[in-house]
């Protein structure tokens, strides 16, 4: 759902590409400043490489380190975790709303789990799934599940009473009540949960790749850092950022499609 009241900033945005240019300009200015700062010796260039070196290392990591292949690998792992997250997280929240006992029994410890560093359990996952992509996917999935479940539950339980009463006054069956009122009313909150979940998933996927030295971008970052190829390390981190950007673009499309369909 988008607000369509035109605020002054929106009119500004509509009037041209100025904000986008300002954004890019700020970024460029930051890089130029860093460049100057590092070259003038303000920062040790063997700890923080100047931006120009990072940019120069792109061709190298693309050709020699197969960064594109790794990028696809990490993106696939994240997407798989994201899909599982959506399916199981949303169903989990729905079930907890449906069965109050389940909610009373689980809500507190799921909330506690949300802030726990589940990533420390990675040895357990290694034992269960082996040293392969599933360990990474499951790790991302499990650590990101709590916010999706909790936000789904919050969204459904927070449906305004009067909307529920409208449904009742039209004699909806429980199934209709869910699909026609509770679920659409909760959708914006559910998307907040999925957004949070995806952030958790991405962090954990890359983190576990790094930790177990296996798979996509995380492993590459590990290797490059060990070789002390810092320019390459930062270049690889740029691809992680790219994964996250693509992720949220997909999600935004999905959200727009879902909340304004029909």
């Amino acid at each position, binding site marked *: *759902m988008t*607000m*369509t009241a035109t605020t002054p900033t929106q009119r500004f945005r509509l009037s041209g590409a100025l904000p986008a240019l300002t954004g890019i300009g700020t970024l460029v200015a930051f890089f130029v400043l860093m460049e100057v700062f590092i070259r003038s010796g303000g920062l040790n260039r063997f700890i923080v490489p100047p931006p120009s070196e990072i940019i120069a290392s792109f061709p190298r990591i693309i050709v020699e380190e197969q960064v594109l292949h790794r990028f696809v690998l990490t993106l696939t792992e994240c997407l798989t975790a994201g899909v599982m997250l959506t399916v199981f997280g949303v169903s989990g929240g729905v079930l907890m709303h449906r069965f109050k006992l389940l909610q009373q029994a689980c809500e507190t410890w799921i909330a506690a789990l949300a802030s726990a560093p589940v990533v420390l359990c990675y040895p357990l996952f290694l034992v269960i799934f082996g040293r392969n992509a599933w360990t990474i996917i499951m790790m991302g999935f499990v650590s990101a599940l709590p916010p999706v479940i909790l936000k789904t539950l919050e969204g459904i339980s927070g449906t*305004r009473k*009067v*909307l529920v*009463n*409208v449904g*009742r*006054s*039209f*004699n*909806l069956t429980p199934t*209709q009540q869910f699909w*026609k*009122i509770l679920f*659409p*009313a909760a*959708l914006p909150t559910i998307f907040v949960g999925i957004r949070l979940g995806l952030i958790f998933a991405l962090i954990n996927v890359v983190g576990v790749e790094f930790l177990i030295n296996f798979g996509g971008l995380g492993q590459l970052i590990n290797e490059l850092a060990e070789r002390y190829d810092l320019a390459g390390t930062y270049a690889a981190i740029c691809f992680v950022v790219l994964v996250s950007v693509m992720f949220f673009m997909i999600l935004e499309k999905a959200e727009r499609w879902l*909340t*304004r369909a*029909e």
Partner: protein
Amino acid sequence: MTSTPHNPANTDILVVDDVVVRFETQEGPVIAVDHVSFGVRQGEFLSVIGPSGCGKSTLFNVIGGLIGHTSGVVSVGGETINSPHQSIGMVFREESTFPWRSVTDNVAFPLELIGMPKAQRIERARHFISLVGLDGFENRYPNELSGGMRQRVSLARTLASEPKILLMDEPFAALDEQTRLLLGDKVLQIQQQLKQTTLLITHNITEAVQMSDRILVMTYRPGKVKRIVDIDLPRPRTSEIVGSEAFGRYVAQIWADLREEASRGMRDEEEHALHHVSTT
């Protein structure tokens, strides 16, 4: 100016017979509706008026089948009501449009439920959108509309289910006075056009006199029927009638009744607040 007896006649389409609603609260039982009886005639516009807290919304929820009652009978066309009934269409006081649906899809909601084909229900929805004067807003979403317009969408949505009785709980309470008067005109016009039996719950005397054939005045705690007043003003009416002398007389009469109840309500609330202060 005459007062009719409260006993429901058997020509009434909606009958509320000796209904009691008691809530069990932590501070003991609260009797929100106390032995209330009245009937609504086919095609008539009846308002229920009373100070806030007198049990109007409770009555609304009971007639709509949303909450149960302790004793008594509510029936529509001879059928006893214990759960929401398709003959009764409810319009709520709070904003109740579906923000994820366009105006057309909001209004077409009850038609969708009965499985009407899409093309047909869009056409039907258009009809009701036009009836409430929202032509041109079919594809807008509720967040693009004003409060008054959204309330009209809710009204159109309820009308689209073609209820025998339109039941409204302070539908204009959140609107400013001018919008309220103009919307009142709109409702009156629609009511006359559809010969829609209407039960309006309100705390606004002007609104009640402007629209009603009869007004039921409720007492404050316990909520009983104090009086039922016939409003013999000519129809069709518009908000212009508000300036007339006869209108003024009705307002004065109902205010005299209501004043007593409202001041009792105020005193009660003050005492309640004092009690709370002294015990905490």
